[in-house]
Structures are given as structure tokens and as C-alpha cells.
């Protein structure tokens, strides 16, 4: 495996980490707000805040890690995406900023503000929608070099069927991942009413997720046939993904082993995400940038990998500790621990 491939794989793993942890967070914000609207907040709000409080900052770092690492390994992406994404990128930043700070305000400061939880809920859907445009753009056809300058073809973006199906997929996946995780968390907390409600949410959002995935495939075939045919080489991954989905749904539907069910949800997205990523290679930005053309130099590439190894040996034990204290500690999950 060459260094470029290792680099992009590492980054893709972190983006996957962000996909899972952030989806839980984004969806939870939406469910919390929805609970407020439908007067069911007393059921879910405790579960949600107990999980989110210790980890929201960690979620954000996954994202920072991804984009800093991307620019580090592949500096040319800064040039292409940087210029083209000024407006959508800034909007995403503002949404992230509002969401993160209002989470802290609402949780540590002024508790019951309707407005704060509204912002928290709505940004939870808008952020995945705006971040997913970066993936859409990577398929090509939305960025052009005009007289030495990079321009984003906004018109094309907003009228593209492909672009909208990606947004749709992003939204429903967020809700599905989040609901299935919170179902598991509620079951650990032995909180029956919350479990029932969240389980319903999970089942409700499950089939739209599959429908949206199919939609993305169909529109990809129109938008970027070359990529579409390459995905067929990785068909086994997508079939694996579907298989994991079915197992997860089976378990959730019959109310069994929610932890295992969530692992299968994670595997479902793992296969789909890596199948998508692998078939996308070598392009980072279709028709403009590949992992080879954008690669930094060999010395920096190796230095980054060494730093990554060293960093990982610190991070993994710390993450395990975090999970043991807050995810797998039954007393904490049940809310029986003093803070």
C-alpha cells in the first residue's frame, strides 16, 4: 500500500468516526426538539443529555481532525475546495458554531430555553445537509476552472437531482443512526418509556434510509457514470451493507439485543461508506484532483503517518476510558451517579 492510500484511508476512518458520532449528536438534537414540540420531552431528554454532555466536544474534534489532516496530506485540496467552498463552507461553520455554543449555553447555563433547543434541533438537520455538499461536489461537474480561477457552479448544484438525493440521504441517515443508538442507550438505562419511543423512531427512519441510498445510486449513474460503474466492482460491500441493515432491523423490531443491533447499523454504514470511498478513488475531486496529484511530499507524508501512529497510541486508551466511564458504566447511564 502506498503512503497516499494509507493517508486517505486514515482520513476516511476519521470521517467515518465523525459520521457516526455526529449523526448521533445531530439526530439527538432533533429528537430533543421534536420531543419538546410533542410534549414528550420528559421521556427522552434525560437519556439524551446524559449521553451528549461528556462527548460533544470529542465529536467535533473528529471533524477538525479530518479537514486538518486532509490539508496536511493533500495540500492541493485546500486550493480547489478552499476557493470553491467559501460560501457553503462559511455557512456550515456558522451553523456548527451556533450549534456547539448553544448546546453549552443550554446545558450548563440557562436551562429551559425554547429558543436554544429550537436552534439546537434545526441546526442538527441543516449541518448534515450543508456538509454533504462537499461530497456531492467531489463527484465533479460543479467546479470549473475559468481563466485560472476556481468557480463553484452554484446553479448546477441547486438544480442537480444527484445533489438533492445526497442531502436526503444525509438527513434520513442521521435520524436513523441516532435513533438506533439512543434505543440502545435507553435499554442500558432500563428506561422503558424512552426505549419504546426511540425504538419507534428507529424503525420509522429505517426504510427511508434504504430508499434514499437507492436514489443516490440511480442519480449517480446519471451524474457520474464512470464512478457508478466502479461501484459495481465493490458490489459485495454494498450488499454487505444491506445485509447488516436487515439484521439490525430484525433485532430492533423484535426488541432484542439493541447493542448488537447498533453495531450492525455501524457496520451497515461502514460498508457503504468505504464502498463509496474505495470506488471514488483515486479522485478526491473528480476530474481535477487525485490522491496522487494532490499529495504533499514524501518526507511530510511519512512524518504525518508517524505522528498519527504516536497520536493514536495516546488516543485509543483515552477513548476506551471515556466509553467505559460513560457508555458502559451502567450506574452512570441510569443516572444513579452523582456528578
Amino acid at each position, binding site marked *: 500500500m502506498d503512503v497516499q492510500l494509507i493517508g486517505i484511508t486514515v482520513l476516511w476512518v476519521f470521517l467515518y468516526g465523525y459520521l457516526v458520532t455526529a449523526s448521533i449528536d445531530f439526530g439527538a438534537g432533533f429528537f430533543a426538539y421534536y420531543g419538546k414540540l410533542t410534549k414528550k420531552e420528559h421521556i427522552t431528554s434525560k437519556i439524551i443529555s446524559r449521553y451528549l454532555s461528556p462527548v460533544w466536544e470529542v465529536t467535533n474534534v473528529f471533524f477538525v481532525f479530518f479537514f486538518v489532516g486532509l490539508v496536511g496530506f493533500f495540500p492541493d485540496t485546500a486550493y480547489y475546495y478552499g476557493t470553491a467552498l467559501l460560501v457553503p463552507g462559511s455557512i456550515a461553520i456558522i451553523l456548527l458554531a451556533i450549534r456547539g455554543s448553544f448546546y*453549552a449555553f443550554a446545558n450548563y447555563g440557562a436551562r429551559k430555553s425554547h429558543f436554544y433547543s429550537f436552534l439546537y434541533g434545526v441546526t442538527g438537520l441543516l449541518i448534515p445537509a450543508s456538509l454533504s455538499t462537499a461530497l456531492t461536489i467531489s463527484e465533479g461537474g460543479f467546479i470549473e476552472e475559468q481563466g485560472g480561477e476556481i468557480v463553484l457552479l452554484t446553479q448546477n448544484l441547486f438544480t442537480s437531482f444527484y445533489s438533492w438525493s445526497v442531502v436526503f440521504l444525509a438527513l434520513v441517515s442521521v435520524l436513523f443512526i441516532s435513533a438506533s443508538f439512543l434505543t440502545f442507550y435507553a435499554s442500558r438505562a432500563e428506561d422503558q418509556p424512552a426505549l419504546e419511543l426511540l425504538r419507534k423512531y428507529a424503525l420509522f427512519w429505517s426504510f427511508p434510509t434504504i430508499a434514499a441510498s437507492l436514489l443516490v445510486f440511480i442519480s449517480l449513474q446519471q451524474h457520474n457514470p464512470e464512478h457508478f460503474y466502479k461501484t459495481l466492482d465493490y458490489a459485495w460491500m454494498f450488499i454487505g451493507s444491506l445485509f447488516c441493515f436487515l439484521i439490525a432491523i430484525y433485532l430492533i423490531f423484535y426488541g432484542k439485543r439493541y447493542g448488537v443491533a447498533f453495531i450492525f447499523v455501524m457496520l451497515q454504514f461502514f460498508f457503504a461508506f468505504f464502498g463509496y470511498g474505495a470506488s471514488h478513488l483515486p479522485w478526491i475531486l473528480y476530474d481535477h484532483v487525485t490522491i496522487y496529484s494532490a499529495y504533499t511530499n514524501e518526507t511530510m507524508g511519512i512524518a504525518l503517518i508517524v505522528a498519527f501512529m504516536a497520536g493514536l497510541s495516546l488516543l485509543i486508551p483515552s477513548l476506551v476510558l471515556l466509553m467505559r466511564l460513560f457508555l458502559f458504566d451502567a450506574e452512570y447511564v441510569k443516572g444513579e451517579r452523582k456528578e
Partner: protein
Amino acid sequence: MELDSAMLSRLLTSLTLGFHIIFATLGVGIPLMVSIAEWIGIKRNDPHYLLLARRWTRGFVVTVAIGVVTGTAIGLQLSLLWPGFMQLAGQVIGLPLFMETFAFFFEAIFLGIYLYTWDRFKKPIYHWILSIPVVIGSSASAFFISTVNAFMNAPQGFTLKEGVITDIQPLAAMFNPATPTKASHVLSSAYLTSAFVLAAITAFSILKGKDSIYYKKALRFTMVASFVFAVSTAVIGDFSGKFLAEYQPEKLAAAEWHFETSEGADLILGGTLSENNEVKYGLRLPNFLSILAHGNPAAEVMGLDQVPEDEIPPLFIHYLFDLMVGIGMFLAGISFLYVLMARFKNFNENNNMILRLIVIGGPLSVFAIEFGWIFSEVGRQPWILWDIMRTGHAATTADNVGLMFILFTLLYLLLGTICIVVLKKMFKNNPAENELEQLSE
């Protein structure tokens, strides 16, 4: 001043960094103060110090949140606004940027744990141990990002030929000549500012008539810390001046309005410039510039006459430098006075006069950070990478930067306002007195 994309990018970068740096500075310094307070509390078995650590942490969570979101903003904005710079410099200086995120990661994990495990361990010292990774993580991230900024001031570790970079040495780039003074001055000033801001809040409470021993202990602790960090900041600041004299003499010359190369150069405080660059009303300290620059009253100091016209930084940075140093002296003076009076029993160190000065010192220390950064960054102009890449050539060519500038201004106004409101509410709804009572029960 023409408002093209480059100028607007500069403004937007300044806006975000100027806002981020307030929270980043507190984010580096407060964990250290919290950790020391908790340690003293455990060692002396003093519940007041433990309560101090807890209450500071609670406020800290809110400022950290803003540090995180504005930091995410600046991290993305570097690519959005300076694509040319990131494409070139990223190849050389990507390593510390990447390591910075590891430091954050480490800090974020343990901060989460620290916040929610106050009473979870049988031995309190275990909880204190969790604060160490938070302190290390935040200070390490400040260190790494400072090396990036140091690299911009003293780039090395690569060869540039016709726009192509070769012969890259990431470690040489990271440990460039600017790194020692830059990183240590940034860290030391962050500790100083955090200690002083906490002291100012405490002094404010005492002025408002709260007279529990809890506040007096807090004030004494923060003042001692402030004094130590004020001295170290000034000493390292002096080294920073010597660094400038050697590696960026035009920045020092511009900051000191030193137009002609000369020996035994005077240091000018304040003053105004006439049209043909004559200094009026300034206070002249004989030979002091030579001392600041080279540690020798007779040494020769390079003046702006040696700098090409189009490479002279804006001359207003003179005031910023004076203000930073002035505030530094003020902070050192107040904390020294307080510590001295506290040593001798027949003075009341908590008199209104000194308390008021401490209250003023809090915001002033934050201003010193702002002045210091603007001085350092504007003083590097016209370069984004000193002597290699001009700021104007590195900026984005995209339109709409102006619109983004307006949006971000609104965002920061909103965040800043709500942050203050929330912090106030938080401490009003749960005054220390309530918790003190619970302690004595």
C-alpha cells in the same frame, strides 16, 4: 485602503482570530489554575480550594465551547481564505497543525471525563490526575499552533526554486528560530491573563461586599500566580525583542519608530509622527532600545533606512507595542504590591483601591493579548510567509468575502453577548455562598 478579496480576507482572518484568541487564551490558562487549585485543596484538605476549582471549571465549560467553535471556524477559514498559502506552506508545516488536533483530541476526551467525575472516585487524587491531560493537551495545542505562527515569521526547513518546494525537513520548519520565544511568550501570557481574569472576578465580588474567607483565599492564590507569570512574561518578552532584532529587524524598527540605523539607540514611548516621520511628544529612554535589542547599551540597532520602501510594516504598531508592554508592567506592579502587602500583617491588602486596580487588570490583560497579536501579525506585513510569500498573493480570489465578513461579525456579536449573559446567570443563580453553606453542613 482598497477593499479587494485580499484585504477582506485579512479583515475576516483578523476578526476570527481576534475573537478566538480570547477564548483560546483562557482555554490554555484556566485548566492550569483549576488543576493547581484542586491540588492545593486536596493536599491541605481545604474545601475552599476544591470549591474554587469546581466553580472555575463550570464557567470554563462555556468559554471552552466558544473556543472550540471559533477554532473550528479559523481552522476551516485558513483553507477558505488563504488557499494559496495553505497549498504552499501546508507541505512544510502540516505536521504541527496535525499534531495540534491530536492535542485537542486528548484534551477534549479528558475534559469530558473531568467534568463529570467529581465525586466518582474514592480517592480525590484520582480526579485530580484527570486534570493533567487537560492541562497538557491545551498547552501542547497552544505550543503547536505557535510553531506554525513562528514558521510564518522565520520560515526554514525547505528550499524554494521557481515556485517548487524541495528538500523538506518538517522538524526544522517546526523548530525555527522564532519558536522558542514565540511559544514560551504565548504560553506564559496565556497563564498570566487567565490568572488575572480570575483575580479580577474575585476582586469584583469582594468589592460587592462578599467577605467570606473563600474570596480572600481565591484572591491571594490568583495574585501570587499572576505575579509569577507577569515576571516570566516580561522576561520572555525581552527575549522576543532580541529575537526580532536578529531575525525581523524591520518589525522592531517599525515598532520603535527607529528610522536611522545607529548605535546606542533610544527607546521611544508614545508620541506622534509628523508627516516627514519626526517623532513629537514621545518620551525618550536613552540607550534602552539597544538594551532591548541586544542587551548592550552601545549596540547598533538597524533602522528603517535599511528596509525597501514597500517592505516597511505599518508604523501604528508602535502604539500597540507600547500598550502591551505598559499593561505588562501594570499587571506585574499590581500583583507585586498585593503579594507584598499580604506578607506584612499591618497592611490591608484587600483595600478598595487595590481591588479596583485588580478589576481593571482583568480586561487589560485580555487587551494586551490582542495588542500583542495585532502588533506581531501586522508587523510582519507585507509578508504572510516572511520574505517568501506576500499576503496579497496568498488570498482567495473568490467573491463574497465581504458578505462573509458581515455574517461572521454578526455571529461573534451573538456568541459574545450570549456568553456573557449565560455566565452571569450561571453564577447569580448559584452563588458561592450557597455552596459554602453546603460545605459547612
